[in-house]
């Protein structure tokens, strides 16, 4: 059960791993762009409406998609139930903040995030044993089943969760006792972005470690991975629990920034949407979920502006076309173009 990666890897393999783990210029650009959105849409420039609440929601969705990427893109576990941990995290943070009445120990946003991560990590650990068994279809149904049971629980435990109406008036105390959540969502966005970056950085470290490499091996062929000595089950349990904790953080973020938690956060379509977001952006790149979340919400806004009711149709169409014609989502497309651009003239 030891999940400590062999820290020393010598020779070519180690050098390659290190080279892959280097931050690239476009990654720095990505995060700078994310920060610059704060100034563009933060009601600093007259004429541009503030969109920071929407952006915070995108960040939370992106984080959820990132957690699925760890499970699906790197470990190859097909899950339709990541929304369960998202909703659980939202309720944990929501109930805590509400019980704390907006004062320090219980309503502290960072403690709320930690609590959500811990509860969801444990829930992920416990349910991971169900996911280890069986084929893709079994996994799909088990994850879906767990999500449905949790959603039903949230619906029934009215005294705790507010039932179908959800939790309202979830007020957090100022972050680190310093920054209060404001009406325009300025604090919310920077806070979400910071949390996203920390989780992203952690995930990036993990997938570029030997532990991450072993996950890829498992995804490629679990039988062979076991044959070369990878403890397959232990690795899958570890990544599943970790991804569950990250999904919980994403849910907690949404609960804190929207100051509410509702059954909608734990419903099936949450899991499905997040999976779509990831596949749309491209699974197995870590950035896929983030880019997918931006495109998804922008698309939803643009299409929703003229056919709010029927945007599902276009979403479905995009999905079908994506599966039929495009491998690797938006990032896969970009990568393909990039490779063709840089390889012009070379013999294949």
């Amino acid at each position, binding site marked *: 059960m030891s999940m400590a990666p062999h820290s020393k890897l010598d020779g070519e393999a180690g050098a390659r791993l290190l080279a892959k783990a280097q931050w690239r210029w476009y990654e720095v650009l990505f995060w700078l762009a994310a920060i610059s959105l704060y100034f563009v849409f933060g009601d600093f420039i007259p004429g541009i409406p503030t969109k920071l609440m929407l952006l915070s929601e995108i960040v939370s969705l992106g984080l959820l998609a990132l957690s699925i990427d760890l499970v699906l893109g790197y470990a190859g576990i097909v899950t339709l139930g990541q929304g369960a941990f998202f909703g659980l995290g939202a309720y944990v943070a929501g109930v805590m903040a509400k019980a704390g009445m907006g004062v320090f120990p219980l309503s502290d946003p960072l403690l709320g995030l930690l609590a959500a991560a811990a509860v969801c990590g444990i829930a992920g650990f416990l349910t991971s044993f169900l996911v280890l068994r069986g084929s893709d279809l079994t996994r*799909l149904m088990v994850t879906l089943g767990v999500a449905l049971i949790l959603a039903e629980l949230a619906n029934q435990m009215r005294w705790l969760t507010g039932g179908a109406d959800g939790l309202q008036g979830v007020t957090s105390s100022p972050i680190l006792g310093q920054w209060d959540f404001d009406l325009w969502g300025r604090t919310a966005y920077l806070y979400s972005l910071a949390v996203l970056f920390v989780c992203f950085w952690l995930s990036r470290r993990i997938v570029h470690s030997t532990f991450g490499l072993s996950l890829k091996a498992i995804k490629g062929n679990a039988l062979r991975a076991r044959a070369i000595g990878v403890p397959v089950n232990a690795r899958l349990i570890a990544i599943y629990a970790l991804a569950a904790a990250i999904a919980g953080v994403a849910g907690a973020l949404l609960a804190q920034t929207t100051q509410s938690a509702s059954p909608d956060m734990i419903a099936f379509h949450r899991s499905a949407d997040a999976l779509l977001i990831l596949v749309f952006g491209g699974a197995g790149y870590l950035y896929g979920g983030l880019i997918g979340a931006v495109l998804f919400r922008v698309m939803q806004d643009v299409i929703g502006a003229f056919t709010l*009711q029927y945007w599902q*149709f276009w979403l*479905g169409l995009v999905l079908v076309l*994506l599966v039929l014609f495009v491998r690797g989502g938006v990032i896969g497309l970009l990568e393909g173009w990039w490779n063709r651009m840089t390889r012009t003239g070379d013999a294949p």
Partner: protein
Amino acid sequence: MLTILFDGVAYGMLLFVLAIGLCVTLGLMNFINLAHGAFAMAGGYLTIVMMNRYGVSFYWSLPAAFVFSAILGAVLEHTLYVHLYTKSHLDQVLFSIGLVFMATAIVDYFMGANQQTINLPSSLEGRVDFLGASIGVYRIFTIVLCGLLTIGLQFVLSKTRFGSRLRAAVDDGRVARGMGIDVTKIFALTFAVGSGLAGLGGALSTGIISMDPTFPLKYMIYFLIVISVGGATTITGPFFASLLLGVADVAGKYYMPAVGGFIIYTIMVAVLILRPQGLFTRASR
């Protein structure tokens, strides 16, 4: 008590007819088609349109729903699904969820989002007393019709040449291909018939449960439960699983409305853990 049992059995039979196509296609091609419910919805709405707008008799609407959904299934299989057999399960899941979304939006566009029902013909309305319990005539009609269908399916599968080819293909597709069985053609036909049966089931459901555009998503989980509990290798497995699910669901909602929703999900997860191959299948195959 007996009424609930009867309602549960009728509901279970209906679920069986709705889900059996999915069971066979899953067992045959290892293809996860989450859009199966969309074919049921097509049949259901066709019935509603035919009866409510054009005044066609209910008895004519049922075969029409079967034929319509079967053709729809055959066309989609030939144009779209055929590209997905070799793709990963994830792709199949995404693709079929995409189809569900599209179907939901299309129905919403043409028919509206509200729930719709039909007026049953007078010969199917009313209740009869049976051993002291009052049972809806329509329930009896459903049970008889679905029972006949099940017997017919079982007969086709076990006694005809097509049935033995199908069973061979399900048991081991590669060897069946090697023996000169045209698995692709069998699959196309099975897919069409399965979709047709789903359409017929959808048409029948309009008399018990109302139709709305979220039908495919709402019932997807029921189909998956039927398969996970019944296994995808026989039709008797899904049959008993459907009956169990129908009775458990109706009884659970009646006696324990607060926890009714949990029971079936919990059963599903428990079965998947203890018997990943399904409750009614041989332990190994």
